[in-house]
């Protein structure tokens, strides 16, 4: 669907992402310091948790349930992964990481059922329920971390080792930018992204799910159980947010420390910024990832040092506000979002 909407494409988040990318490629070619090479791999690493979490939000919101609880769901996955890895890494290091991610996914999905139950069965205010999820998650995970692991922190021994992709990494330019120094979790996330796009837009299941977010009674009258679809949507948001949390752990953080520092909320912003579309989300999260990374490393890059750091730091947030202003006139929000059925 929506093949007719191409006319706006050049202002879409995807394209903003592509512009940045092109600019970076250009910089990489021009600059002796390989600025882009210094930034891009880490920007991608930072993007991925946002991407999968926003994708989770996409499932939920496309099925018609607002999910403000992504932050909390990420945290649950973050915690469950950390705990699993902490208890298995000694006996089998090779299996610990994938297992940890899996448990994170499951934990996120289970926890999200609280939100599903409240918003689907009880027709509760979804914003409030989502807020409760966030509060519950941050209180309970830290509580459990304290009682199970002894302190608020759960540290793991080693995350994923970055690898160059054979052959592809040898391609000049693109190869060095995208295929060197990658985490395997990044490819998992990208596969999830591709599969989600396929599921949502190319299958009958996706058609039904999206219809639930637009006009649930039409779906019901077509003989499809709207409750089940919405449970699936919310469950996926929990699972993917859990995955996002797990990826934070095994890529750059290496420890559960009781907070995902607003990344869940940022994912919601990316979901809206990306206009509830997989490509848009990819562009929006990539934008956040890159902008934040630039802000973080600007200190060590002399070319960037001349700009006051506060500019870098507020840049992603200001741009998001501006982008939302620019896109506001044609919001693609699912029509029945937040409405109980």
């Amino acid at each position, binding site marked *: 669907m929506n093949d007719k909407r191409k006319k706006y494409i050049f202002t879409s988040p995807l394209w903003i992402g592509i512009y940045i990318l092109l600019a970076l490629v250009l910089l990489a070619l021009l600059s002796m310091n390989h600025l882009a090479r210094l930034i891009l791999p880490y920007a991608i690493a930072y993007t991925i948790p946002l991407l999968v979490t926003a994708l989770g939000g996409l499932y939920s919101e496309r099925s018609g349930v607002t999910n403000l609880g992504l932050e909390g769901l990420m945290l649950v996955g973050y915690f469950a992964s950390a705990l699993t890895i902490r208890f298995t890494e000694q006996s089998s290091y090779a299996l610990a990481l994938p297992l940890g991610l899996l448990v994170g996914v499951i934990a996120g999905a289970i926890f999200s059922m609280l939100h599903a139950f409240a918003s689907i069965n009880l027709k509760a205010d979804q914003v409030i329920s989502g807020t409760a999820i966030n509060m519950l998650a941050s209180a309970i995970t830290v509580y459990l971390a304290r009682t199970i692991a002894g302190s608020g922190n759960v540290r793991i021994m080693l995350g994923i080792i970055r690898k160059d992709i054979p052959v592809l990494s040898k391609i000049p330019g693109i190869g060095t930018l995208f295929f060197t120094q990658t985490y395997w979790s990044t490819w998992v996330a990208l596969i999830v992204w591709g599969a989600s796009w396929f599921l949502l837009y190319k299958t009958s299941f996706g058609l039904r799910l999206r219809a639930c977010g637009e006009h649930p009674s039409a779906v019901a*009258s077509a003989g*499809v159980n709207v409750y089940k679809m919405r449970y699936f949507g919310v469950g996926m948001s929990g699972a993917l947010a859990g995955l996002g949390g797990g990826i934070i752990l095994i890529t750059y953080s290496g420890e559960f420390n009781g907070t995902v520092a607003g990344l869940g909320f940022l994912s919601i912003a990316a979901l809206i910024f990306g206009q509830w579309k997989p490509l848009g989300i990819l562009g929006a999260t990539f934008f956040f990832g890159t902008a934040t990374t630039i802000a973080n490393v600007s200190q060590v890059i002399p070319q960037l040092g001349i700009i006051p750091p506060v500019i870098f730091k507020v840049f992603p947030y200001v741009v998001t506000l501006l982008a939302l202003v620019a896109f506001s006139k044609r919001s693609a929000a699912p*029509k029945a979002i937040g409405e109980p059925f």
Partner: protein
Amino acid sequence: MSHVIEMLNIRKEFPGIVANDDITLQVEKGEIHAILGENGAGKSTLMSILFGLYHPDRGIIKVRGKEVRIASPNDASDLGIGMVHQHFQLVQNFSVTENIILGKEGGFVLNRKEAGKKIKALSEQYGLSINPSALIEDITVGMQQRVEILKMLYRDAEILIFDEPTSVLTPQEIDELMQIMRNMIKEGKSIILITHKLNEIKSVADRCTIIRKGKLVAVVDVASTSQAKMAAMMVGRPVNFTVAKEEMHTGAPILEVKNLNVQNVKKLPAVKDFSLQVHSGEIVGIAGVDGNGQSELVEAITGLRAIVSGSVWINGKEITNSSIRERNEAGLGHIPEDRQKRGLVMNSSLSTNMVIKEYYREPFSHRGVLNQSVIDEHAQDICDAFDVRSGEGIFSHAGKLSGGNQQKAIVGREMALGPDIIIAVQPTRGLDVGAIEYIHKRLVEHRDKGKAVLLVSFELDEVFNLSDRIAVMNSGELIDIVQTSATNEEEVGLMMAGVKIKEAAL
């Protein structure tokens, strides 16, 4: 004689109301069977039960002689039952194909092309001519209805239910629909038709089941029963189809609209170069099919929508760029189209709702501080005068009132403003006969006081009953304004379809 459908002794209760009380419906194969009943009589409920959306508290359903349990629309669909709902069940930003195949996609991976072909073929077979790849939001209401019909045909439905299919169509589209129905019968299908329009029943139906307040009244043979008789059975008393109304002398123009151009949500022209005058002492009715710019016209006049060009005047004062409040103060009253969305604050008390346009004025408030007792008195007066009934009086939340009482409250509030002109949009939609009569009477009274009324209605009967003059709108244009006494339904119907009689006559 074989019955394709038998619903025997069906009972369905909702909290506080028995929607179906021991109703029996028998439909023969190859017939068009009409169901007639007042608003809230329980027609839609009965059909929802047949379609598997509700489950009966009691009663048996037989399809082709076999007793069945219909637990979901899927079961209904498997039994060959299809339904076109009163409110279309279409996803606006999906394509025609996607809407039709939803729930019956056949396979996990979508094959839009294949489905599109099948739909095209079906559409040609029944003369529906539809573009499978168009988006619903881009096609007309009539076309949307065809999509609903195709949805049933795509599911190989043998028994087709139409719930008030004509209320959104032009007379010409109605004729086409009737033809499509006859085609379907020829193909061996059976049809259940729900409509409030007796002439339609007369024109296509074979038999008619009449229900009142959830109970079966009679099953009649249409050919041998007069319209008046059917109406009387439906309501339980002889029905007077017209409102008593005296001739009035019209005075100065109260509302003037000059060369108005307005865009719709999608930024397309919705009202084109529209001009109209409404004088004191007259009711002008705007006739037209839903979606031809009436809503945009009203919104432009009332200030809810920006005007592209042209001007609006009340009592000779230009209000084109005035705020909504300034227009209210200039003497404009407005009974909005959607009483739930615009008309009332559902989770506030009636008393709050009754001053929602006047709360800032003396005596309801003084220097920004509300005077609650005066407000309550005012609300009580309106409720008394307009017979608004509710559980907790003026403290009831507006959302707890029945539709008719909500509408009476709104009409009361607007009348209490003492406006020089009232714009009444669909003032009786979804109301029962009693409430309709009441509101019609009040509108005519308003006119009789020398004030003006601009009535917008999709019901030709209502327009003819109330209006002194009729303005016909099609695709945002004013086709013509005619004296009610000098025209008839056929002529107005043609104009609603866009035919300019005057020019055609030339």
